[in-house]
């Protein structure tokens, strides 16, 4: 191909580059939060990062790999319990236990995938939920970690993170920000790699993808394991900040799956930016309406249903379709040497 020298394949556009610079500036401002924010601000922001990360991971699983799971709380809880087990039983520093919890959860996800992948579609969804229930019931049988009533992180472990409380808050905050960013970048890179292309092909037509030589099962299992690993690290971090764990809190289907699904769907499923927008909307609603309690949850359910029925691509889907705009473009564009771009 003599033309190949004069053709470039890129992801970025001018608009996306500007957006990315703005995003980077925002991240820098957020990274400085320990210098401008109070303790409450840091905790709220860390929680926002955790939800953005959980929603991004669920989006990868459901929106890109077509694996609609309602059992991701299995890995939130598993990661959290592993962190507490490694810290309390083995005396490992929590900051080391965090990545380790992710790796072990990834390993656990392999045999679990072997089981739940026998179920398809909707049945897969409920199958993952049962796995989460098994994990929850198993955790409440572990008397070393407090059984059904749970346990707290010992003071010596808390001090091991950082000597002073202010420094500890800052360290945990930075870890939360770094983890959320790492997960976001990892997802973008994964989707831009050949696995991303494979996922897209599978989403469009599983049969056609298989005919093109894509190992559909292997690709899906890979995404499932990667997601489990990330979800577990986020879970470990959430409960490291709470300092206390119990099976019902760690494996809560409401907190770690219902909210995460609503966030992703309202923000826009199948787009990188969707979960981030969704998280912002979710927290704005929560900060203003949380006093309503159960009524707030009912409203959230109604909004999610309404979005699914009337605008299934979510808020970001509407923006992206109207303006053809993307902060983290995944589509390849071919640039010819005369400067014209083709999709």
């Amino acid at each position, binding site marked *: 191909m003599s033309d190949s020298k004069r053709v470039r394949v890129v992801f970025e556009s001018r608009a996306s580059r500007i957006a990315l610079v703005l995003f980077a500036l925002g991240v820098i401002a957020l990274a400085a939060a320990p210098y401008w924010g109070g303790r409450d601000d840091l905790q709220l922001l860390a929680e926002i990062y955790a939800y953005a990360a959980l929603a991004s991971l669920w989006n990868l699983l*459901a929106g890109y790999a077509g694996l*609609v799971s*309602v059992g991701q709380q299995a890995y939130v809880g598993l990661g959290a319990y592993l962190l507490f087990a490694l810290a309390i039983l083995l005396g490992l520093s929590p900051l080391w236990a965090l990545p380790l919890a992710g790796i072990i959860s990834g390993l656990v996800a392999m045999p679990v995938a*072997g*089981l739940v992948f*026998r*179920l398809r*579609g*909707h*049945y897969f*969804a*409920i*199958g993952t*939920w*049962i796995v989460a*229930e*098994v994990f929850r*019931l*198993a955790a*409440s*049988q572990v008397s070393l970690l407090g059984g*059904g009533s749970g346990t707290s992180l010992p003071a010596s472990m808390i001090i091991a993170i950082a000597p002073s409380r202010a420094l500890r808050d800052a360290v945990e905050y930075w870890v939360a920000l770094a983890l959320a960013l790492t997960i976001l970048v990892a997802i973008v890179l994964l989707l831009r790699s050949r696995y991303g292309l494979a996922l897209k092909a599978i989403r469009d037509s599983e049969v056609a993808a298989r005919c093109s030589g894509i190992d559909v099962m292997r690709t899906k299992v890979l995404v499932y394991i990667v997601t489990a690993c990330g979800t577990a690290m986020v879970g470990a971090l959430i409960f490291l900040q709470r300092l206390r764990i119990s099976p019902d809190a760690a494996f809560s*289907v*409401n907190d770690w799956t*219902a909210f995460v*699904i*609503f966030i992703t*769907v309202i923000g826009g*499923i199948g787009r990188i930016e969707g979960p981030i927008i969704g998280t912002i909307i979710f927290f704005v609603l929560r900060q203003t309406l949380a006093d309503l309690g*159960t*009524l707030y*949850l*009912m409203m*959230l*359910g*109604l909004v*999610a*249903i309404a979005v*699914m*029925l009337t605008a*299934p691509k979510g808020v970001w889907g509407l923006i992206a379709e109207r303006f053809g705009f993307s902060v983290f473009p995944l589509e390849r564009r071919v640039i010819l040497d005369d400067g014209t771009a083709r999709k």
Partner: protein
Amino acid sequence: MDWINVIIQGVLVGGLYAMFAAGLSLIFGVMRLVNIAHGDLIVLAAYLALVITQTLGIGPLTALLIVVPAMALIGYLLQRILLNRTLGDDLLPPLLVTFGLSVIIQNGLLTVFTADSVKLQAGAIEVDTVRLAEGIYVGVLPLLQFAVAVAVIGGLQFVFYRTALGRAFRATADDPAVAQLMGLDNRHVFALAMALSLAVVAIAGVFLAVRANFDPSQGPARLIFGFEAVIVGGLGSLWGTLAGGLILGVAQAIGAHLNPGWQILAGHIAFLIVLAVRPQGLFPKVRM
């Protein structure tokens, strides 16, 4: 003797699980929809029965005469107004909408009835027992519940294979487009399937409410039991679903007998073993 009792109790509870499962299996068979709110609808039916027995002063079994048609009507409208709009190739909309519905029902019940657990009083029948053999006694109510479960499964089997309605269900399940060409209104057929499913849910809900304490948070667990019974029994087979319910009930009873904390876990593990060894279920039948 002890173990025989445990297994009998398990079988009797299993009938209830089979009823949870039958409604689930029915709508999946007809329109490939898994209703995540199924368990919450069971609990809703239980609360409906509670309100009716208290306001009218009638017994739970008489209340069935009102709860069953009421739930069937809710099912018809739910499908016609909301769920029909979610059906299609994409599996996310039905899953998400029924998931949202589950959250709405659960929190709605929580708002109206609080988190306190309640129970339906059935009177003297609750403590009546019959002697099956030396040392083996069975409660009249669990026995009745089991008989009703078998009757419900048998009734569904009859509707499916012996009536015009069942033929419409099977035709729509096989090929919705052709069924429509033959003059069936799919939206109506689907709504009737959901109505039938929720009629079964209503019966299951009333027996659940009489058997034990219940509260608004119990729905998801009922959904999971029903789902496990469907998969253990094998997709598409109604009698298989009954067998699946019984196996689940017996597994839970054995687990509970060994250690009270293992009851639910034992049921899940039985399910996972079946999934690992025989993923198509014990009595599979490809089409309903």
